């Protein structure tokens, strides 16, 4: 008899925004998405997604009740931050007065470029490998803030040129099983889905 292990992926609820497309994408790759509202729920999942909906402050306010638990599952369950979810991992942002999770040095700035917000497909160049299975290519962006002109060393491994600057598009911290993408994998076709599959595979191993 074959045993099917369904990976439970917790999508943290900031109380705002629509996580429907992440749920759709996770279901498509055979995972079981679950909206996370409490520390107990957070402990019950195999992987965690910090989604890219809402604004920096509103997300940090809602996240405050989960920060301790997030810090304690970090390193055991893989965590993927998407768009704003990646930005929250830094010290703070031009978008809000509240501090971020502070997992990484760096600050989130308002981007500059031919158009803000930066909406559409853009190229991600990878300088290094990541066990998440992310590869260089085109992904879908939709944002006004980012870590701008980041230092070119791990955990910063994916970069995208926009206007006259470079934005951090992929963070990969294998040691802490913490990952982030500035783009939206759930909207980035096959390449995007393969990143979510990578998260599922890490949760299984």
């Amino acid at each position, binding site marked *: 008899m074959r045993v099917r292990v369904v990976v439970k992926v917790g999508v943290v609820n900031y109380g705002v925004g629509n996580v429907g*497309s992440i749920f759709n994408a996770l279901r498509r790759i055979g995972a079981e998405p679950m909206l996370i509202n409490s520390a107990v729920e957070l402990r019950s999942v195999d992987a965690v997604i910090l989604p890219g909906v809402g604004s920096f402050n509103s997300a940090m306010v809602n996240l405050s009740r989960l920060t301790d638990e997030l810090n304690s599952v970090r390193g055991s369950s893989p965590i993927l931050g998407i768009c704003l979810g990646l930005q929250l991992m830094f010290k703070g942002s031009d978008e809000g007065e509240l501090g971020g999770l502070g997992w990484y040095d760096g600050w989130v700035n308002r981007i500059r470029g*031919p*158009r803000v917000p930066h*909406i*559409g497909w853009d190229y991600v160049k990878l300088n290094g490998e990541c066990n998440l299975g992310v590869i260089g290519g*085109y992904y879908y962006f939709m944002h006004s803030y980012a870590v701008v002109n980041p230092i070119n060393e791990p955990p910063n491994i994916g970069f995208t040129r926009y206007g006259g600057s470079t934005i951090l598009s992929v963070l990969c911290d294998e040691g802490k099983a913490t990952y982030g993408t500035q783009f939206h994998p759930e909207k980035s076709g*096959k*390449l995007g889905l393969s990143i979510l599959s990578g998260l599922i595979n890490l949760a299984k191993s």
Partner: protein
Amino acid sequence: MTRPIGLVRRIIPCMDVDANIVVKGVNFEGLRVMGDPVELASRYEEEGADELFLLDITATVQGRSTFLETVRNVAAAVSIPLGVGGGIRSINDADLAFKAGADKVSVNTAAVKDPSIVAELSREYGAQSVVVAIDARRISNEWRVFIMGGRVETHLNAVEWARTVEELGAGELLVTSIDADGTRAGYDIELYRRLADSVNIPVIASGGAGEPRHFLEVLKYADAALAASVFHMGIINILTLKAYLSESGIRVRTLA
């Protein structure tokens, strides 16, 4: 003036939907059955479409819930951005479309009747999720805005209207030339050239695509090109089209 170079241009198949079937009209009239929305959407994602648009062309009260079901099914089947329009008259209509899985909504007639809906949607969902659709017809030396599916003429000049909705917070414009729509004789290039000079938000060109050359011409001025029947009927394959555009110097997303 052309649009900023270096930005990736998008190809967007558009599906006009009536009772869960994709249909297509000529010059806004005479509908023909084109296929199943989920099947077509999946095929387009596979071929490399950058985004999809679903338009509710029944927009009747009873047709509305059927259409939202179509949106839900398509959103569950694809993982590229999905725009939804047709019959969005209020914040509540928009909310239902977002909940069904839309990433952006387009408003047309409702925005002309009460422009404050554009600002309200932009505040609530962010400019990136708000598309204003403009149907324009050339009358003497200007483009006039038409509403109610192209049936009713307004006093608005399309280029000025585009500027107005940009200020109100629209994140993008979907501009259809009624004259060119369904003819397959090419986009109304002059219209998009004017718009490129007048607004800074992305413009999606629509109406008139017949052959790959038409896309190349319009993408010098527009950020994205939308088309329907040439894709539905298999006259143009998106993969082949994007390879051609890329060889011709237009930056497009390629599938790795």
